[in-house]
Structure formats: C-alpha cells, structure tokens
C-alpha cells in the first residue's frame, strides 16, 4: 500500500513541501522542485511590479496543476492583514488552501498565537483549508485544530535559522494529541533535521532556506528528499526503546571456555 497523506481533497505521496523564495532564478527553483520530489510548494502574494512588464514568472516554470500551490500570508503582523492576503491569494484562482502566518515579532519571526487562532477561525468559516504556521506549543496546536484547521504547522526553530528541531519533546506531545496532519515548518538546516522530525512521526516537513540558501541547492533538495524518506521509513519501522545500558548483539552461548 502506498504511504500517502492528505489535506482537504489533496492527496500526497511526498512528505517534503518546499518554499519558492530566495532562489537565484525560477529555473533553479524548478530544478530544486524536481530534485526534491515535492508535490506542494508555498508561494507569496505580492504587488505586481508595473515597471517590469513581461517579466519572468514562477508560473511559467511551474505550471499550475503540476504541483499543489499553497499561498502564504507571510509578512503579515495582524489577523486583519493576514485575512486580506489570504483572500487575495484565493482570488488568484488556485484553490482554497492557505498557509496562515501571522508574525508576532520581527527579530525571531515567531508567530502571534492569539492572532493566528483569531484569523484561522474566520478563514475556516470562509471555506479556506487553513494550514497555520504556529509555535511548537501543544496548547496552541490544539486550539488551531479545534478552530477547524486542516493541519497544524509548528516550527522546528525560527524561520531561516537552520537550527533544527529545538524542542523534540513538545513536538512529541503535539504528535500524540493531533488528529490533523502535523507539518513541521521552518528551522530545518540539514537532512538529518528533517529525518529527526519524520522519525518522531511528523506528517511532513516544509522548508525553504535550507535548500535555497545552500551552496548547491539542487543537491541539497535531493538530500532533503532522502532525509525525509529515511525518517519516514524509520518511523514506520518502529525504533528500539532507549536504554541506559548495553544489550549485546552477539550471543553469549558458544563463547570459549
């Protein structure tokens, strides 16, 4: 049986979701998308540059329909602002998915939990499939789930920090309680970080800077694909319990007298 997961009507095989920011150009972005095997990409909603007519566009390289687009509300600091971006994103016509981000602090880009829950409630009522970026806090994850979010997306570490999973124990609690997909979003630096969250049982991992900011983004995208797959396979295989003392691998019987 194929190991799939879903959000709304969308069914995915790949458990790696990639951002499309910070790439050298759209062609590189597309090569990374191919190397990563990702089936969902995040995009931002911004003003058209009226001075750059006929400019290249992401959509020319990644045709709608080839992957699932997840529009974000990045850069929003209030619930009201996030609602505005979400509605504009939906009007762009690629579906009801929204990666809800309401930032609470400029330096850390940590989310504003209260405003995120407030915005999520309204967007759910408006028929959006809401996937909120949130703190690695089991209480806020539960509130977002109760608000009707289709997934929760706790951070591993600050956006773009590459610190990896800072709080595996909170993530374990979130995973234990959640009835919706848990997508670890932000903070991954290397494939072992991605493997780690997948080993714990995360549904998927979302990353951007770890790939786009590496020296060889296409190679890193391929490495991340393997990291996510390794972690997922290990989770399904079931790890051994941790023990304080040794347990010999070779038999005691048959030792020389």
């Amino acid at each position: 049986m194929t190991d799939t997961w879903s959000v709304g009507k969308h069914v995915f095989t790949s458990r790696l979701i990639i951002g499309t920011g910070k790439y050298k150009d759209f062609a590189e972005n597309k090569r990374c998308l191919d190397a990563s095997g990702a089936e969902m990409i995040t995009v931002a909603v911004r003003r058209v540059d009226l001075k750059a007519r006929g400019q290249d566009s992401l959509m020319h390289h990644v045709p709608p329909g080839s992957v699932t687009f997840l529009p974000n509300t990045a850069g929003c600091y209030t619930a009201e602002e996030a609602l505005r971006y979400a509605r504009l994103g939906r009007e762009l016509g690629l579906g009801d998915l929204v990666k809800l981000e309401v930032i609470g602090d400029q330096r850390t880009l940590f989310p504003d939990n209260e405003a995120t829950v407030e915005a999520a409630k309204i967007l759910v009522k408006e028929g959006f499939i809401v996937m909120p970026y949130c703190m690695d806090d089991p209480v806020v994850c539960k509130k977002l789930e109760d608000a009707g979010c289709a997934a929760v997306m706790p951070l591993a570490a600050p956006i773009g920090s590459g610190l990896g999973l800072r709080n595996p124990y909170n993530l374990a609690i979130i995973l234990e309680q959640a009835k919706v997909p848990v997508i670890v979003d932000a903070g991954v630096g290397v494939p072992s970080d991605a493997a780690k969250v997948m080993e714990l049982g995360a549904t998927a991992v979302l990353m951007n800077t770890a790939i786009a900011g590496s020296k060889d983004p296409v190679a890193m995208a391929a490495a991340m694909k393997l990291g996510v797959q390794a972690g997922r396979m290990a989770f399904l295989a079931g790890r051994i319990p941790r023990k304080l003392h040794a347990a010999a691998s070779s038999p005691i019987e048959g030792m020389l007298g």
Partner: protein
Amino acid sequence: MIRVTINGEEQSIEPQRIDALLRTLGLNPSYVAVEVNRELVKRDRFAGVSIRDGDQIEIVQFVGGG
C-alpha cells in the same frame, strides 16, 4: 483623465474598467488579483467595475515565498 493610485503609485489614466486597465498594463487577468479601495474584486467582475477618480487599486500576483 482621472487620478488613481495603482500599487502605491499615483497615475493619470483614462476612465475605464478593470479589464481594460489590466490590458493597458500588459497583465494577464488570469494571473492577477485586484482590490479597489481595499475591496476584493472577483475576476468575473473585472469587465463590470469602472475605475473612479481617487481609487486606490492593488494588483497582486504569486511570487516566490516560503
């Protein structure tokens, strides 16, 4: 001519509807979303909404982001 603000820049344009404005700007209506005075204008209304003097127009698209 009317004075309007498009994506933060004040401009003088002929009075026209949104679909015509997008054509003038060389934009494909399938790839943009439009707000007039902070109100979302659905794509199927582009041909029906006239731009008025003093309107604040926002035209957005998808760009790369995380």
